[in-house]
């Protein structure tokens, strides 16, 4: 198990390193950040001085090393728009995003569990009567997130005035953005859960259970446990969609989280803030996947016992 954890950890670090390198490269091939940071009307000397002060005139390899040094120390340059530690700015916005993402994830898991159990638990019996939640899921999957958001604001916020449409003011304001975000994450979860539950129910061991005299509910419970593996995998992959989704959902609902922050930072070409924000998002995503991997080991004894192979 320890070897397994270490291996996963190693791969995680490689992934973080690679993703950050990609970010670094994109940012550095797009121009001298000093130009963007210089005050309006600054002349070339001033820009050169600023560039030097910030270290942007050093060779790229040196900057690359320095960049990772900064990341490791958690010591990011100041945001241009907020004039304070970019990491601090991101940190301050974090709770809003976490609340939103966690609520959406909980909603998605509930929805996926209900739809998956209903449609997959039939084990192929029941036909359309059991399949309708999957059609709903299918629809949710085919509607762009921003469109869902826009429609929800229109219907529930403006026409019906049931729910707040913007800002993180109170639990009621959480409902629409969380539902929108959940709409994006539920479909893959529900589909995978349904399919894997069906697959699990078709596996001989569930038949063994029935042959031993287990009730349908008990067999379902065992099968549901078995079907968790692919669900958890998809959950890890969907963490990316969830984080990406916050970018759009936070824009639509003016939700003051890191997703909206990254959009404004990109628009303002706030180089250090983009960097800090992405570093955070990447790390969060990769961490989630690490957790998923470890969960895998917990869920499936076979994985736990074969640390050598994956």
């Amino acid at each position, binding site marked *: 198990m320890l070897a397994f954890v270490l291996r996963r950890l190693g791969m995680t670090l490689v*992934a973080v390193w690679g993703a950050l390198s990609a970010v670094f490269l*994109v940012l550095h091939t*797009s121009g001298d950040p000093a130009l963007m940071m210089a005050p309006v009307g600054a002349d070339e000397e001033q820009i050169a001085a600023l560039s030097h002060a910030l270290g942007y005139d050093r060779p790229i390899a040196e900057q690359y090393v320095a960049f990772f040094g900064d990341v490791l120390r958690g010591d990011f340059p100041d945001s241009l728009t907020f004039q304070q530690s970019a990491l601090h700015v991101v940190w301050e916005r974090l709770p809003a995003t976490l609340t939103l993402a966690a609520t959406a994830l909980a909603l998605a898991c509930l929805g996926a569990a209900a739809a998956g159990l209903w449609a997959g638990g039939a084990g192929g019996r029941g036909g359309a009567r059991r399949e309708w939640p999957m059609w709903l899921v299918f629809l949710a999957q085919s*509607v*762009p*997130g921003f469109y869902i958001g826009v429609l929800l604001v229109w219907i529930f916020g403006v026409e019906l005035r049931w729910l707040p449409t913007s800002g993180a003011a109170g639990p009621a304001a959480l409902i629409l953005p969380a539902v929108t975000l959940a709409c*994006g994450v539920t479909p893959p979860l529900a589909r995978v859960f349904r399919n894997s539950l069906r*697959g699990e129910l078709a596996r001989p061991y569930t038949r063994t259970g029935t042959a031993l005299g287990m009730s349908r509910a008990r067999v379902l419970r065992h099968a549901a446990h078995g079907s968790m593996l692919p669900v958890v995998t998809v959950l890890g992959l969907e963490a990316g969609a969830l984080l990406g989704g916050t970018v759009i959902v936070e824009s639509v609902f003016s939700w003051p989280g890191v997703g909206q922050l990254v959009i404004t930072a990109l628009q303002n070409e706030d180089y250090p803030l983009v960097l800090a924000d992405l570093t955070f998002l990447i790390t969060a995503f990769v961490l989630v996947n690490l957790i998923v991997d470890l969960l895998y080991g917990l869920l499936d004894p076979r994985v736990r016992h074969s640390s050598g192979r994956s």
Partner: protein
Amino acid sequence: MRKTRKSRAARRNPFFSAGAFGAFVLGAIVLVTLLAPLIAPHDPLAQDLAHTNAAPGEHGYLLGTDQLGRDLLSRLLYGARTPLLVGVLAVLCGGLFGTALGLLAGFTRGWPDQVLSRLTDIQLALPSILLALLVLSFGGQSTAVLVLVIALTGWPAYFRLVRARVLALRTSEYVEASLTQGIPAWRVAVRDLLPGVRGLVAVTATLDLSRAVLMEAGLSYLGLGAQAPEADWGLMVSEGQGQLLSSWWIAVLPGLGLVFLVISANLLGDHLAHRREDHGGREAAAEPSLAAPTPARTP
């Protein structure tokens, strides 16, 4: 005989008739987009400032006009151009790239596999919409960059599926049989493995098309994809969302267009995936259910 088999498939698979429907709608959208210059009643860019925000039916505009008095119907007819063009090109690029590399990695194993697999890990560590935002914001936006960035975020799906399939096929006896016949490895890869992943790639590509379209729409919505005054469904939703209160049709109709486009691609993809499961025999049945890709989704 054929007929009964088909109808049985139809009964067993609720997506069957839906698949035909998806193909039909997708075809219709493509056709309408191609014929737009012939059938659109107006120039999609022509403004009629005297009749802005006209409701559907008003002043002879069948579906109304937008804030600049442009005919919404004509804009809708043209509006699938960019999503389809970008989507198809991105799917082609990503699909070819991912399939080729998946074939390479799965077949040779060893270090190319290691390197490429780590690369996809890294790629997947960057949520695709963020990667796209980053590249488009700092790399400048153009259709070519848009296609590339969508393809870039799409190739790992093909890579992983093809690689897994090739890894499985690689040790299959018929591939070994070809090798023992002295047939060169690359030829075995092309003649024995490629056909084996063809169906899988086709399914993935169809579902990837919906992902690409959604991503194009999402980026256009955020202002990083298609640019005004172009008629583009995602951009139109973004332009019209401020008018939902007074002129809902400006944002709602192009959004519906997107929904139809994506649904039809998803239906078709699902149908193809199911058909593979139904008729693919042993190979398909042996695949884990995960391998039948669920359509990716960009919010």
